[in-house]
């Protein structure tokens, strides 16, 4: 397989795998757990390595998952004492576990390729150099691992879709219905840990955190259901991975770093331009809202003078600003708003109410 394709495939499968479990973390409001786990799993990897002396042993994944669960359990225990807040509890636990891992590496496994730099940054660029044979195909090892993890995550979110949705939205009801939110929670934590290990080689722990938080956060802005959010997350993660790779090639820089930057850009674009929840759309909604009450006043004004001798003067488009004591520009905006919302129409420079506008005015005059 050629170099570019193997890098792209690896990056995309890591990105999608991360974004799926990341979506669940973001919705559970525990996205920082991904940061904690991405570091603390190092201890699990080191312990499993010291036991097996094999860097490719599947026990490394088991060890990582165990320490990931341990991280969350320790944080919960600290929180249970009610002596400190969640952010402090997270900040206490993972550096401790991570540092034990680092000390163990330097003291007992110094001769092995398990160096701390690679853990933080990873090197996607070398993905193609380490290959293994699967079904007669020579594939990059990190692609094999990351697509296996992607498959596991995909199975988890599709099989337990309804259970996950219920226990994230309303853990109390989930428990009272006999579903076990706690079991799902620890399954999720285990999968996040395994995903972290798979992502290490390829992208390092920092990019992993970016992929777990940024695409889901952007996806939330675009989604009306959990399924949509998972889909958007996966898509945005893939776009960031591919876009980031080409950016790195273009500016000759670290691939993982560029993918993380692309994640940030993706989020920024969605944050600004998402159709309903984006910043620009919010501004436009508020600007419209600003004109609603003046338009209602205008409707009442017209209703009061409609069909009377003074109508040609009072209801003349040109005179509205003067009679309502509005600025010319503002009056034009209000008239525009009222026409767009079918409250008024203009006939020979005279404003008349539509059926809808008359209804609105009458209701306002009745109820105040």
């Amino acid at each position: 397989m050629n170099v570019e394709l193997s890098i792209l495939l690896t990056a995309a499968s890591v990105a999608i795998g991360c974004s799926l479990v990341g979506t669940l973390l973001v919705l559970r409001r525990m996205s920082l757990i991904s940061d904690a786990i991405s570091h603390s799993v190092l201890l699990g990897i080191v312990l499993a390595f010291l036991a097996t002396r094999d860097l490719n042993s599947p026990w490394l994944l088991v060890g990582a998952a165990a320490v990931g669960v341990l991280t969350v359990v320790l944080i919960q225990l600290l929180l249970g004492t009610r002596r400190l807040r969640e952010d402090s509890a997270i900040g206490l636990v993972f550096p401790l576990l991570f540092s034990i891992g680092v000390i163990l590496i330097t003291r007992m496994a110094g001769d092995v390729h398990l160096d701390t730099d690679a853990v933080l940054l990873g090197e996607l660029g070398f993905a193609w150099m380490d290959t293994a044979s699967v079904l007669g195909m020579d594939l990059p090892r990190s692609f094999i691992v990351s697509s296996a993890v992607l498959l596991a995550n995909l199975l988890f979110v599709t099989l337990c879709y309804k259970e996950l949705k219920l226990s994230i939205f309303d853990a109390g009801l989930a428990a009272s219905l006999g579903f076990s939110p706690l079991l799902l929670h620890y399954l999720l934590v285990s999968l996040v840990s395994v995903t972290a290990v798979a992502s290490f080689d390829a992208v390092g722990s920092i990019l992993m955190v970016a992929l777990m938080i940024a695409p889901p956060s952007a996806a939330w802005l675009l989604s009306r259901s959990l399924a949509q959010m998972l889909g958007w997350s996966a898509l945005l993660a893939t776009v960031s991975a591919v876009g980031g790779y080409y950016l790195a090639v273009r500016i000759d820089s670290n691939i993982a770093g560029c993918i993380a930057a692309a994640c940030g850009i993706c989020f920024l674009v969605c944050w600004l331009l998402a159709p309903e929840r984006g910043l620009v759309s919010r501004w436009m909604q508020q600007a419209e809202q600003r004109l609603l009450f003046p338009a209602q006043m205008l409707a009442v004004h017209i209703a009061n003078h409609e069909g009377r001798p003074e109508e040609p003067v009072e209801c003349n488009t040109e005179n509205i600003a003067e009679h309502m004591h509005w600025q010319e520009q503002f009056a034009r905006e209000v008239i525009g708003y009222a026409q767009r919302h079918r409250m008024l129409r203009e006939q020979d420079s005279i404003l008349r109410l539509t059926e809808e506008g008359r209804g609105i005015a009458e209701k306002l005059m009745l109820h105040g």
Partner: protein
Amino acid sequence: MDGVTPAIRVEDITVAYRENPVLWDVDLEVPPGVLMAIVGPNGAGKTTLLKSILGLVRPAAGRVFIKGEPLSRQRRLIGYVPQRSSVDWDFPTTALDVVMMGRYSELGWFRRPGKRERELAMQALERVGMTDFANRQISQLSGGQQQRVFLARALVQDSEIYFLDEPFAGVDVTTEKAIVGILKELRERGRTLLVVHHDLSTLAEYFDWVLLLNVRAIAAGPVATTATPEMLAMTYGGRSAYLMKQEGGDG
């Protein structure tokens, strides 16, 4: 024994957070077919009692029976409406979808809701007057509408015993009346309802039974004979009266 198994029987429930008792030795029998309020001051343990009956809080002591059996065998009989503020209304989903969650226990693990669940959920939304909002995002609903959605979700559970935690908190008058109507209708159909309530002025109008709770169970029974001024004073003034007596003794 009068021969009627209580819908809910609570025996000597004590719940403590770090050795501070939140509930002290509470006994309670709820006869079947009543609409019962739990009232008491803030911090009286009303929500905690509800949660310990539902097995969501582990009591330090005591037992709970649902129609004479432990909870684990009776889950199917139970419907639960948590406090509206206990969930994240920014979750990306629709009103209809939330109501369908009430059918999940019937479906069990892994099975997806289908056409039948959708129909039942639409019927429940119609009963709470929310048909037009079925496909609305839950984040766009008002407080009263959110509470109606929660009630509809309990309705599709079609349970025998309902637990509701402050269903009237922060809702408009119309919604409050609508909810009361449905609770009474459920009682007419023989359901049992246990409701955490905080408004004494509507107690007699809405409920027929009441538990007065202030860490201990002060009294329980029909509203007319239980919620007497003396008993209410004991429930709401009990703590301060007790403290004043102590201070008086010291001085």
